[in-house]
């Protein structure tokens, strides 16, 4: 009887995971299928390299790809040190009440919808950025990545502190016994031990930053030029899809957004694959 129940549970869980994998693959298949009409006309290369100017028959998405990378990377640059610091605080330097309190707040932050960050950004951050640099409209890569950094930091903080917690206690105990400082403990023992976890957190956060739509749409200005500075307005692939989706079904604009989807899919998948590979090599 117990074995029977066990079997049912096994099949059920196997089925569920199989279903998840299937859906993910179906999405990729669906997007490739729908981008076939464009691929057949040998427009792939122009689409990947041209500027976006539908009025002149150019439908390139290069500046969106660059914009996506630019935005996601810069938001990581901002949030990585902050997240690392917060997880040190939670896990190592203040594991007591204040650390737990911070952890609870961070957990709460994961539940804030992105549109709220976008809204706050439009009314509070954008005018400040515009006035400080007195350049452009304030709707820029900088504004969007600051808000994105706030959005993705909880993912990183929770991931980092989890991997710090997994460092064996006797390792850290040994550092204390040798009279090591907290700094030495962090840099010579914990980080070398926990870095695969840190890397995974970093990749997941990068994926989240790339995949977010609303913050980019509301704050980055969505211009179609190749961005040349942090204060320039830029458009991400996700925001581009959100804007073009209203276009006529039969138009080339509409067809190219499936290419955008594929590119976005491949970019995130490759990142996650790389992280898993590194993780696996070290395990």
């Amino acid at each position: 009887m117990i074995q029977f129940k066990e079997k049912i549970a096994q099949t059920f869980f196997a089925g569920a995971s199989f279903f998840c994998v299937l859906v993910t693959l179906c999405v990729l298949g669906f997007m490739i299928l729908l981008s076939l009409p464009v691929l057949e006309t040998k427009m792939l290369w122009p689409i990947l390299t041209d500027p976006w100017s539908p009025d002149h028959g150019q439908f390139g998405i290069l500046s969106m790809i660059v914009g996506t990378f630019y935005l996601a990377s810069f938001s990581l640059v901002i949030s990585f040190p902050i997240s690392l610091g917060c997880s040190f605080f939670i896990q190592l330097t203040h594991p007591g009440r204040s650390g737990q309190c911070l952890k609870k707040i961070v957990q709460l932050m994961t539940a804030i919808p992105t549109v709220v960050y976008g809204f706050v950004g439009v009314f509070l951050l954008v005018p400040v950025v515009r006035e400080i640099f007195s350049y452009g409209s304030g709707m820029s890569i900088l504004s969007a990545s600051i808000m994105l950094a706030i959005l993705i930091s909880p993912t990183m903080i929770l991931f980092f502190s989890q991997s710090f917690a997994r460092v064996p206690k006797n390792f850290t105990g040994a550092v204390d016994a040798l009279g090591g400082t907290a700094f030495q403990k962090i840099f010579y023992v914990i980080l070398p031990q926990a870095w695969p976890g840190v890397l995974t957190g970093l990749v997941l956060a990068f994926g989240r930053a790339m995949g977010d739509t609303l913050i980019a749409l509301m704050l980055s200005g969505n211009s179609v030029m190749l961005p040349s500075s942090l204060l320039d307005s830029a458009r991400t692939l996700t925001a581009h899809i959100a804007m073009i989706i209203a276009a006529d079904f039969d138009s080339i604009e509409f067809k190219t957004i499936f290419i955008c989807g594929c590119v976005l899919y491949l970019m995130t998948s490759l990142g996650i694959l790389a992280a898993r590979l590194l993780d696996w090599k070290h395990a």
Partner: protein
Amino acid sequence: MEKRIRWISGLSILFFLLSVVGVCSASGLDAFKHENGTLRISGGTAHIPVMKEAAKRIMEFNTDIQIMIAGGGSGAGIKQVGEGLVDIGNSGRKPTDSEIDKFGLSMYKWAIDGVTAVVNPANPVTSLSSKELKEIYGGNIVNWKTIGGEDRPINIYTRDKSSGTRSVFWKKALGKGDISGKANFVASNGAMKTAVTNDPFAIGYVSVGYIDKSVAPVALDNITPSLQTVQAGEYNVARGLYSNTKGDPSGLAKKFIEYLLSPEGQKIVTRKGFIPVN
């Protein structure tokens, strides 16, 4: 006796007046008396103020009716009504012939709307020639100082290609001229207003119905865009506001469109800053 007659006649006049008022206020809405169900509307964002007011009145009159209004832009409105996702798809431009053929659309134009360039109210520039406007949007005039404003770069805001507001502004105000690649893109009339309200160095364009204290319209070739100038044909950056249905409208959708075209509906149109068609 005389007093009594006067009294009665007074009373009857009162009754008469009351009944006339009663008939007037119910004339448009009466059609919705025994209706129930849901009406889904999406599309052009210029239409929304009128849609909302009409929906509010109808839903207050008959609480069994649910009317849901979404934006999305003219392109989305036409596409969604064609796909049968909504009952009425609004567009701020006439649907193209291929769209009409493909989806079998019926179009109803219930208002005329001007599209005007807007700047922040703090901006001293309140009038531009069409040549200046073209050069600003084309990226040739890049500083407000050149046209009598502060020494700050001009921040251009525009809409994506599926916007009906953009399509008329681009055709009639910019003469199909280029729009600078540096322009920022926003997704609706409302988002455009928010952007220009918050940015003292912005220039954008909205439907005249969206003009209030938070954004200042720019006179084009010395003609201030307003209800009167659009109606008189002096300000010509204007277009029809359309509600489209797949095939001939029926049920609630039909009554809703009839209501928009009724005297009461047209009054709402005027109140929201558009020009009635009837």
